[in-house]
């Protein structure tokens, strides 16, 4: 199995896709290495969050995604 990575909002444009599958297990370094470079650059910004298995990580660098997990990359939400 794999880890499903979802690119939300404008990150999907940067990634050129809405999602990609990566081999499990996946940690922060593995994620940064595997996503397109433009997305990796965004991920290093504090205002971009990461959710794993339906929960936003307080510290995204602690990411540990196992087989079958879904990771969502969450850029800042749009204004009103």
């Amino acid at each position, binding site marked *: 199995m794999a880890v499903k990575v979802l690119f939300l909002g404008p990150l999907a444009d940067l990634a050129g896709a809405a999602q990609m599958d990566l081999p499990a297990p996946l940690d922060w370094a593995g994620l940064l290495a595997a996503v397109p470079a433009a997305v990796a650059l965004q991920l290093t910004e504090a205002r971009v969050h990461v959710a794993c298995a339906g929960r936003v990580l307080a510290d995204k660098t602690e990411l540990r995604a196992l087989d079958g997990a879904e990771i969502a990359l969450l850029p*800042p939400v749009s*204004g009103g």
Partner: protein
Amino acid sequence: MRDIRLLPQMFIPGTLIGPFTQANPGMGGVCTFVGEVRGEADVEALELTHYAPLTLPGMHELADGAFERFELMGLLMVHRIGVLKVGEPIVCVSAAAAHRRAAIGAVDFCMDHLKSAAWFWKRELRSDGWHWIQPRAQDHDDLKRWD
């Protein structure tokens, strides 16, 4: 009464607010905010995307916060997702309470959080294509009022 929804289709706020008001008998007042897609020059449509595992649970947490902070009898919170045309309602928040200040405060509180702390991403269609809407500094200042 608590009614929290994400709607993929056009809705008519009055059809939600009427039953909501009826469902809270004995209340002193109800405050409602309805946001619509603004008819700005060159904007043809607005698309809202969300992340299902977070967005609706986040709205429920927001409702919990509103019930803790204000003395409410009922809260209706409805947000559109999908593609919207100019003039269509995006969001409807309605709060019923014994006292007006609680109802008005709860709507103000929920709207500030929906605008800058809920998991929605918006892009608008102009004649030259789709454009993502960026975060607004004003929204973050608004949110800080509740810290």
